[in-house]
């Protein structure tokens, strides 16, 4: 009996490294599996552990699920110091046309696209987040009122939102590119507007001019001197 126990101990010790490796392998894959799955009760109960693992091994594989049903437009309206004369420029369409023309050698344009669209998506997410909170708070209010309150709430916090700061910084590049030097020096205010053009429903795909552009968010006039 004693010999059998000794033999088992020796066998386990000899192969212990295999057990350690396979255990680590198994635990890593189990954790990975939980982190990438859609939200479920088990994932919810292990929220802290999932977050910690996700911090080290961050991953998201829900590509185009769902795909966007709109195309974005980014408008910059520059005004002089009296906020009277203004000029508006849309920047997204020209950027994306340029990206397509230069493909596959479009790295720089692609980087600008990712930065701008990443910032825009972040702003949309903030509006959606705020909308959901307000819907719970003001259950009797109409959708229109909630939407306006949500946008207003995000605009009020603009100075603390990195995405907005990015768009404001980008406006300097836009103004330098599109305005004369003396016009740039006279600039005082900026307004940023994000709109969406809906991709028509599949059933309406062959209809003439079916696109509709809707406002998502528009800032109040931003004093450019605050961001120099």
């Amino acid at each position, binding site marked *: 009996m004693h010999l059998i126990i000794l033999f088992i101990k020796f066998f386990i010790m000899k192969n212990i490294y295999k057990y350690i490796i396979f255990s680590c392998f198994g635990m890593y894959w189990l954790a990975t599996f939980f982190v990438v799955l859609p939200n479920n009760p088990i994932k919810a109960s292990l929220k802290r552990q999932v977050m910690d693992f996700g911090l080290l091994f961050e991953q998201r594989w829900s590509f185009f*699920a769902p*795909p966007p049903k709109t195309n974005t437009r980014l408008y910059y309206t520059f005004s002089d110091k009296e906020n009277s004369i203004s000029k508006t420029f849309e920047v997204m*369409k020209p950027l994306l046309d340029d990206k397509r023309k230069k493909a596959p050698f479009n790295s720089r344009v692609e*980087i600008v*696209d990712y930065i701008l669209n990443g910032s825009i998506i972040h702003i949309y997410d903030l509006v959606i987040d705020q909308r959901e909170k307000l819907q719970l708070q003001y259950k009797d209010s109409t959708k229109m009122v909630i939407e306006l309150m949500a946008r207003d709430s995000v605009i009020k916090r603009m100075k603390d939102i990195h995405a907005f700061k990015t768009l404001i910084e980008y406006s*300097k590049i836009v103004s330098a590119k599109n305005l004369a030097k003396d016009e740039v020096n006279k600039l005082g205010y900026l307004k940023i507007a994000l709109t969406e053009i809906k991709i028509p429903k599949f059933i309406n795909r062959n209809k003439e001019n079916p696109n509709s552009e809707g406002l998502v968010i528009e800032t109040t006039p931003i004093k450019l001197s605050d961001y120099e």
Partner: protein
Amino acid sequence: MNKKYHIAASIFRVYVAFHLFKKYLFYFFNRDLIYSKKSFFNHNNDMLLSFFNVDFSLLRDYNNIILTSVLILSLFFAFGIGKIWTNVALFLLVEILQRLNGIVLNGGDNFLKFILLYLCFINSYRYFALKKYTIESKLYNMLSYLGILSIKMHLCLIYFVSAIFKMNTKIWFSGVANYYIFNIERFMGTSYNTALSKNALFVTLSTYFTLFWELSFSFLIWFKKLKIPMLITGIFLHLGIYIFMMIHDFEILFISTYILFFTDKQILKFKNYITNKLDSKQKLKVETI
């Protein structure tokens, strides 16, 4: 674990090195946009690096040194110089660069991080290295096998998870998702996208093909007779995305992982087949002359 993947692993290592070099060379020339404090991009600090009290300002100031290091290490990696240490250093530096600016990243960058991690455990230095690693070690062989298996499992996981998220959305389920995808201006790779998106047959077939292929890949790829058809259709799918959606590096990286599904025996068999074909063609030419 008796199957050997030394050739595939070595070829894959060389490709990853090339992929890293190309990517970070572009980033080097565009570092003013991506990493510099002078960029219009307003950086927010990564949570994990903040936890370790990393000085972001210092990293941004010396981003050119980090990028240059990645470029040099990529070259070392291509030639197998420094072996695992080069690999580990690359993993850490790429991780830092990815966390310095996460907004320019896509799924390919996400997968690349894991590939670099798994490559640390893989013996990919048996071939295409200045100093080949030919020592047979049970432990290293086991780790190597698990590393290669991890890359394949991660690929399967990505496809599977992507498919189940898609299945959960109405437009994928009803077969019209590719209509919307082909009309997204950000990813409109060709002027044919709009015309193709209006064709109901194309939209429905391509949507369902993508969905079913992604869903079935994780299961069918392990069957000998279905492996090659699955990989060939995968190559076409990714090339289609490359052309029609202007997503470049991501697609080629995913295609490159397919080589890890072939053992040394299978690759040598294929190589001998090609060599014999070329030899017989050469003989025919000589005979006709």
